[in-house]
């Protein structure tokens, strides 16, 4: 049986080809830590997690800590680890857990839809019906121009989905979801082989031409739009906006043709992975984020690992492929079988820890990549999958960006604060000065170094 495609991918993504790109990060280009990149990844898993002794996301006082609870330990304070969180033990001083956080805007969204606002905190039931800008895009608006790609938006199912059934975490603003990319080969080519074999001069000439054509097209489209009624005009705005932003992108791409592409060997690579190999697939997506960060192709990424509304995708069967669970993955959230719930969380933890490990084992400046990358990992539900309060939230990395780790923080009862407070701190860590985000009331002093 021929498995060489498999080797190709693993060697390339794990070391081989990437070794070629390392000089970019070490030595030549940047020496002092002031110019080293500050990065952020927002990642999301669906259906909440197993919290047997405290299904509302807050442990019940008179029960012992469950060895398979998603929470590594019962009480706030120094982190200790249980079976479910064991993969994170090596990162004890690089991670924090947060209990009692959520987005008020998601409360009334319904148990199958609150993932829509995980990265935005928008009040979709009330005044922000078409969602709003996500945290990664806020950062990208400030620093995106420094890299070839302002941000990288990934997901396992691809596209934007629809309201209440989002397939992406990232939004430019109200009514402007960014479709997530889910095909590894396509993502890889986009990052490292954007000219598809054409020479730089040819690409530049093409871009120049494209820019002038798009200008004419925009004019032509305006005359179309002007003849429509007001509702339809607004609908066609999306189109005009798209051309405008493509024009900007063309300019930007053109500028970037003056800088060399990261030296990653793209020849003959096949990195397509089927959803039927969940671990391979998820790790491949994590690898791509890692590669994009490592080559400084972008500094802000979102990765929708799962969505609640996946019954028409193979994601519906992830737990079956990964663990042999006899049922839809969504059933684990509802039935919470003791034997699979913990294992499923543990499986997810292993994948995420794999990513953290890759960052941590890559030296950068006087630390590691993890020290300069803020990684959010969480869901929009606790154990009770229809509940939209008290999310499971883990934050990792960013020790050199002013974050301190090693604890579980509890914001329950009268200590409750919005999740958006953490977002504010994350944005500050990546040098994005905001006073507030969504319903935030302040930043989160607990993790400020």
């Amino acid at each position, binding site marked *: *049986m*021929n*498995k060489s*495609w498999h080797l190709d991918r693993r060697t390339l993504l794990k070391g081989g080809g990437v070794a070629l790109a390392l000089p970019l990060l070490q030595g030549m280009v940047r020496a002092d830590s002031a110019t080293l990149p500050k990065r952020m990844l927002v990642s999301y898993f669906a259906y909440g997690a197993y919290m*047997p002794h405290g*299904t509302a996301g807050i442990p019940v006082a008179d029960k012992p800590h469950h060895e398979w609870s998603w929470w590594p330990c019962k009480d706030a304070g120094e982190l200790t680890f249980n079976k479910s969180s064991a993969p994170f033990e090596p990162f004890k001083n690089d991670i924090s857990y947060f209990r009692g956080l959520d987005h008020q805007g998601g409360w009334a*969204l*319904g*148990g*199958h839809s609150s993932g829509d606002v995980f990265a935005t905190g928008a009040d979709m039931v009330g005044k922000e019906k078409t969602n709003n800008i996500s945290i990664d895009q806020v950062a990208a608006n400030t620093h995106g121009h420094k890299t070839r790609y302002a941000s990288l938006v990934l997901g396992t199912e691809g*596209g*934007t*989905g*629809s309201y*209440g*059934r989002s397939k992406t975490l990232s939004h*430019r603003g109200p*009514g402007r*979801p960014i479709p997530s990319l889910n095909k590894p080969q396509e993502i890889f080519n986009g990052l490292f082989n954007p000219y598809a074999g054409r020479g730089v001069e040819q690409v530049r000439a093409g871009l120049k*031409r494209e820019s*002038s*054509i798009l200008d004419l*097209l925009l*004019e*032509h*489209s305006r005359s*179309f739009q002007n*003849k*429509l*009624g007001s*509702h339809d005009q607004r*609908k066609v705005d*999306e189109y005009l906006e*798209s051309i405008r932003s493509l024009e900007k*992108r063309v300019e930007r791409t053109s500028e970037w043709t003056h800088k060399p592409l990261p030296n990653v060997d793209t*020849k*003959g*690579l*096949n990195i397509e*992975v*089927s959803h039927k190999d969940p671990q391979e697939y998820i790790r491949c997506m994590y690898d791509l984020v890692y590669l994009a960060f490592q080559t400084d192709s972008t500094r802000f990424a979102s990765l929708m690992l799962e969505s609640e509304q*996946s*019954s*028409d995708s*193979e994601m*519906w069967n992830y737990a*079956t492929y990964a663990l042999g669970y*006899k*049922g*839809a993955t969504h059933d684990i*959230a*509802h*039935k*919470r*079988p003791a034997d699979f719930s913990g294992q499923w969380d543990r499986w997810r933890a292993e994948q995420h820890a794999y990513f953290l490990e890759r960052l941590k084992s890559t030296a950068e400046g006087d630390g590691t990549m993890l020290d300069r990358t803020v990684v959010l990992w969480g869901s929009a539900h606790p154990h*009770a*999958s*229809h*509940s*939209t309060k008290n999310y499971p939230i883990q934050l990792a990395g960013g020790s050199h960006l002013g974050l301190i780790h090693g604890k579980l923080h509890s914001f329950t009862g009268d200590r409750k604060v919005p999740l958006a407070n953490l977002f504010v701190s994350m944005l500050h860590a990546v040098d994005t000065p905001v006073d507030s985000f969504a319903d935030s009331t302040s930043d989160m002093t607990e993790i400020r170094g």
Partner: protein
Amino acid sequence: MQYSRYVVALLVVSWLGTTAPAFGAERPIPKSIQTLISNHCADCHQGENAQQGIDLTSSSTLLTAFEHSDTLDRVYSAVKRRKMPPTDAAPLSEGNRQALLSWLLQELTIRAKDAEPTQPVARRLTNFEYQNTIRDLVGFEVNLIEDLPKDPIAPYRFNNTAEFMRMGPEQFNRYLEAARKVMASAIVNPEPPEIHKTRVEWQPHGTDRGLGADEVGVWGNRRNTPATGMGVRSFPPNGEFRIRIQASAILPQGVKEIPLRLVLGYNLNENSSTLRIRPVGTISLSNTPDAPQVFEFRGRIENFPTQPGRVVNDKRQPDRLTITFQNLYDDGTLNDDQAFLSPRNIAMPRAVINWAEFEGPVFDSWPPSHHTRILFESPLRETDLNQYVAMVLERFMNRAYRRPVSEEEVQRFAKIYDIVRPQLPSFEAAMRETLAMVLVSPQFMYHAPESDDAHRDYALASRLSYFLWGTMPDESLLAAAANNQLSSAKNINNHVQRMLTDRSRTLQFLDNFSTQWLSLSKLHTVPINRELFPRFLYYVARGERAGTEVPYRPTIRDYMVDETVHFMHDLLSRNQSLLQIVDSDFAMLNQPLAYHYGIPGVQGHNLQRVKLPPDSPLGGILSQGSILIANSTGSAPHPIYRAVWLREAILGDEVPEPPADVPALSDTAGESADSALTIGQLLKQHRQKESCNACHASLDPWGLPFERYNSIGRFQPLNPREGTRVSPYSSNTHGDMAGYQRYLESINTEEVVARTILPTGVEIDGLPELKSHLIDQHSSSIAENLIRRLTGYALGRELTWRDTPAIENLVNQSKQVDYNLRDTIVLICQSELFHAQILP
């Protein structure tokens, strides 16, 4: 609302005690209606805690409630469907009910006349429409959908709804790439291309387990046979190809024909689940090896996935293509364990392929017709190139925009041509780029109201065409529009009738429509429990992947989608009553499906109408595998899923999502949730917990009558006794179908309970009783639902209260023609709704 309940109560009293307040200045609510509402509705719909938030009491709030026409519409629908007043309240006399309904409808009608529409109707083409339109525009098959961001999916809704259809820079960029890809194929270079040919022959000798080296068995064959494929190393980058094969079939007694499928793409012998293929075609073989015949397949090379070449010594090998032959015959014994061993493969029908030939590109003349259709022959090309370019643009744009274009519009693109021509190496390249821009302009990509009154009929032609074909209007529709001969009822009728005779396009429409209407797509992802259903999926019998599902081969699940689509097509083409979706005396089956359902005597791979006996568990779509599997867990039926489906897809109710603060049922079972709650126990919990009961009392009963249909869509009236240990399936003793049947009989001993009491108090036992009940009591709701779905799909928007009077009208008209499906579609196309919002 700032009134306390006490104050509200006072207001009610005072309202009833005084003269009727005016409803609007000129239209008071009739006194009789006021009395009706206060007698029958006010008990529950009162004050701050009014049920559903609909407060129908005090003078001021009566106004408030009905100020929102939405509420008026909801009240109308609830009374009409006899949901209100509920069964435990005092019933409304039929006279009063009619009086209330007619007042509500009258009020809705008056308001709808004045109301401005608030929804956008401008929307981009869906991916489905986009691909079809490009196909018809350039005149050959294109495969573009895979490169576009996925259109959103929402259960029971249509993705052509304007609000759903988003556009962003990423999408736009993909459209740009797709447009360039299409134009690269459509316009060729002047010099004829190099022709690539590959030919392979297979000899009958060298048998393996009795199978000759030129044969394709149902379980495949060993290496170097047509079953493992034929490599094509040299092929053009695009253009039409032809594959010719000489083939025949070895048919056992009683088998008349076998399906042979050709797929093109990656080499399927590699052990990976990410190999990509596309079918080229399926033929039926009935000729024997002593009378071999030559068959021809055609396709376009750029529509098929090529396998990237490997890197050897740092050099990339050329890309590859592989043609693989698949014998799709299935008489229900494919999953007999150990069946792959000799002599079973030789006992089954086999295809014989003597030789196969790949040739490409093929063309009748050079340049090919799809090229000359755009860059037509003309002396102008030599004498006045600018004039020629303008004419090319005008012809192309007239079709791309589905209406005559203005001189000004043509000139805009001529300008684009002027910019790109000096920068590109050839005239052809410049035209490709210019025309690609036409394909990303909003006039091509969007459905929008037509701003020029003279183009009204063109807009109507598009509306008809995108509704019934999912593509641009054909010559005949455009000609009718040009002559202003489209809008009359008679002409609409003629065109609709004509359009619906186009079998392949109508099937595409019904596939796209039904998949969304019935929310079928989740069918494919329900995890079938292999231990319970060891014979349903096709499993790999040996090797490293033994026991996993056979990839790259159509499954019974795929045929089930076809079953539903062809069923709808049969109703449509024979103009049968749409109520037959509930029950019918026929089913659309092929041999594998018939075997699955236990219907004897069906041969062949193509779906065919099969007459059902009166007591058959099949008939209608309620008992089709596509529905039953999609709404099950893969291990067991799921009465709640099935109930939601029935109420949404068939009865047209909107079933709310479980509210956010109500925990999922099984969560409430706490730590012992996993200790086997049967569905019966779960439902019982629903009834006991008040927060669940409010919704589930009106939901669960609709799903229980389906219980005798199992998780793989088969009728299964017996189950294992609950709580007993069932002896497991063993391939040694139960490997073949007879043994499997004996096994099922030995474990399934208990009658399945499918009895329920509907919210209306009617007792129902099993699906046949439910079907009769639906036909007797709910036929107008069922008809209204399908009419609403079809109309919403046709208009590309969600229907609102404004549409209720028009829909009422349509339902009544449809009833006059016995709800016959084709007539009903004609009525929709003739309706005022269909002709509205053509202009901005």
